[in-house]
């Protein structure tokens, strides 16, 4: 009896050990491919690593080097172009002169286009201009200025006028001074 009990205990222990071991193996080997299971557990990646790098990086390295080289070349060309645009190099420009034939051809072309172009006539310069009748009527029909404003302006002008009229020169010494040259 005792031996049967011990045997059954041993069996149950062994069974639980086996299932634990198998469970560990299963969880290590089996990949969680179910996208709907977003449960955070001890297997959840802390950093999001792209799947291409997780699987076999070495076989894909050789396949990606040609596109990387062309990207680098494009970037280098862009930097070169930007530097050439920004650098100041007056000496490299050299003397430039239009050929006589090209010059006369362009003069003819511009003259022909200018003659056919409908350029607006330049407005004659003037200080006062007539307003159109509608605007004129609107301005004349507008209400006059406030009486308080009018009084303020009148008083200010009167004060300024009286102040200017009180300006005078006070004679202190002779304006004409003889030079006493010995």
């Amino acid at each position: 009896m005792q031996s049967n009990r011990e045997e059954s205990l041993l069996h149950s222990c062994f069974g639980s050990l086996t299932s634990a071991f198998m469970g560990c193996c299963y969880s290590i080997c089996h990949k969680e491919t179910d996208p709907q299971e977003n449960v955070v557990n001890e297997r959840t990646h802390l950093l999001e690593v792209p799947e291409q790098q997780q699987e076999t990086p070495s076989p894909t390295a050789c396949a990606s080097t040609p596109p990387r080289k062309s990207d680098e070349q494009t970037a280098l060309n862009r930097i070169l172009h930007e530097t050439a645009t920004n650098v100041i190099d007056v000496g490299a420009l050299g003397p430039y002169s239009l050929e006589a034939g090209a010059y006369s051809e362009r003069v003819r072309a511009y003259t022909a286009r200018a003659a056919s172009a409908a350029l607006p006539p330049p407005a004659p310069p003037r200080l006062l201009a007539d307003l159109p009748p509608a605007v004129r009527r609107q301005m004349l029909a507008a209400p006059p200025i406030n009486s308080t404003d009018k009084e303020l302006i009148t008083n200010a002008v009167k004060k300024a006028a009286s102040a200017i009229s009180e300006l005078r020169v006070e004679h202190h010494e002779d304006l004409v001074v003889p030079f006493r040259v010995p």
Partner: protein
Amino acid sequence: MVDDLRKFLNHLLEKVNGLHCILITDRDGVPVVRSVTEKAPQLALRPNFISTFGMATEQASKLGLGRNKTIISMYSSYQVIQMNKLPLVITFIGSDNCNTGHILSLESQIEPFLKDLGTIVADAP
């Protein structure tokens, strides 16, 4: 009409004391409209001279101060003021004691015509 514009430029020439000519050209110095007095130096009216501004303004815009708008060149007997209105270039040539500020103020009076004149030089051969 271009003749009206030329008459307007002649009027501006009379307004500014000491101003000898007003030229509106393309980048290579080919004239589109010009108004010239007999006092203007003939060598300065040639495309070789006016076209130097195109290169100068392009390089001057790389100095880190923004786009170059105007270059004023003072000589012993003349002053040359050139304005960047690409594809057009406006060139004023005046005497050395001409009022430079007065010449610069003419820009606003010429500006309204530049848009239409720009279409003339837009498709240059």
